[in-house]
């Protein structure tokens, strides 16, 4: 019952070609950059990636796309300060895009984690993004039916972790991370610090260990924003 692994390489080693991988973060905050880089090194291809964005610069998710590993991206906002990598791949027809409203994306992932196969939302009703989806009226208002979203793997960035996988997050780096941790068959976490069991107050656990498969300490985790300001490129 010790979920700690010593290397990122080991943590991502079982991600096969064609896997669906959720990657936490909103822009650079909460993005598990080192795990993504380990996934690049690992070499899996043909991935479907779920992330709010489409990467920035030439590190993290952008690098994964640049290396040609992503067949499909499910996201809400594939634009950013420097989304050149995704934009080029998309306009060249090399990557599919499923565009999902941000709140619907969050709720679909939460539903995947919570065993709710479908739910109704007012979001998107009457728009192109609801095309083909069932519509139902409740109490005189129209709603779109959306399906859960699950993944084979989730790559998560946490602040504190213990050996059972209990997690906390730093500030707004929380974002999609706790949701994706729930919605994947295998949830792999990079934590800035692994503390002893009991080192996280039980009331302050944000992601209980039941949602976590593996934990790796990455003490000096990079901020994607800082990498991009330094014009870093991976690999």
């Amino acid at each position, binding site marked *: 019952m010790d979920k700690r692994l010593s290397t990122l390489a080991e943590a991502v080693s079982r991600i096969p070609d064609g896997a669906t991988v959720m990657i936490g973060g909103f822009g650079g905050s909460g993005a598990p950059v080192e795990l993504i880089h380990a996934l690049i090194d690992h070499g899996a291809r043909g991935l479907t990636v779920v992330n709010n964005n489409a990467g920035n610069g030439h590190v993290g998710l952008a690098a994964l796309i640049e290396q040609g590993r992503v067949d499909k991206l499910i996201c809400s906002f594939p634009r950013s300060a420097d989304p050149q990598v995704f934009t080029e791949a998309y306009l060249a027809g090399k990557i599919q895009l499923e565009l999902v409203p941000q709140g619907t994306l969050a709720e679909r992932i939460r539903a995947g984690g*919570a065993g709710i196969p479908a739910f109704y939302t007012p979001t998107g009703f009457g728009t192109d993004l609801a095309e083909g989806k069932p519509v139902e009226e409740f109490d005189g208002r129209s709603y779109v039916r959306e399906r859960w979203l699950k993944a084979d793997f989730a790559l998560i960035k946490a602040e504190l972790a213990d050996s059972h996988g209990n997690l906390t997050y730093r500030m707004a780096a929380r974002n999609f991370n706790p949701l994706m941790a729930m919605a994947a068959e295998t949830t792999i976490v990079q934590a800035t610090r692994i503390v002893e069991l009991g080192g996280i107050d039980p009331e302050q656990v944000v992601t209980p260990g039941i949602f976590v498969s593996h934990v790796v300490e990455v003490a000096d985790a990079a901020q994607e924003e800082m990498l991009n300001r330094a014009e870093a490129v991976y690999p």
Partner: protein
Amino acid sequence: MSDIQDIKLSNAQIAWRAAQDIEDGAYVNLGIGFPEMVARFQPEGRQAIFHTENGVLDFGKAPEKGEEDWDCINAGKKAITIKPGTAFFHHADSFAMVRGGHLDVAILGAYEVAQSGDLANWSTGKGGVPAVGGAMDLVHGAKRVAVLTDHVTKTGGPKLVEACTLPLTGVGCVTRVYTSLAVVDIEDGHFVLREKIPAISLDELQAVTGARLHLDGAVGELIAPEELA
């Protein structure tokens, strides 16, 4: 045949047997009452993590009398304690764990279990005040749903039946039944006998079972520690 009351396993022995199937690191929810006894019998070297519906994971044992903190209770409203690794969360997150398939095992009691895997354990159908709690969520959430039960009712009637007569808790959800006489799997709409206590013959066991017991290879001997009798 000897009187079943004399040869049958005690509740503690049934719980002990169920505990042997819980793997190291498994996340487990134990129903209120008799199933809670399973926690006592974790095999040496294995550590299960227990979940309780009201929002606690990996809790510790009951506090000493007089030491109870009534903000720290389990689904049975009994006082529990925290230990290193405990996490608290709200009810929606708790049932996300249940419904979302994150629990490895849920172990519940039963009024009746059908060979289809249907379970009836929440209502005797006799009026009074109905109460369901989390049972209906648990039976459709955990990866494995097992039942602990006496093999027969207090009046000697079968609890393993062709079809439930009492209101259902869930449809086709149970995969293994630990009884006071046997271990029975449910596969493809059949009861498959895996183990039985040595003191009862196959015919005798079949006679107190409400549906046909199928065999699939050897039937193991169900022997529990005598000190739990």
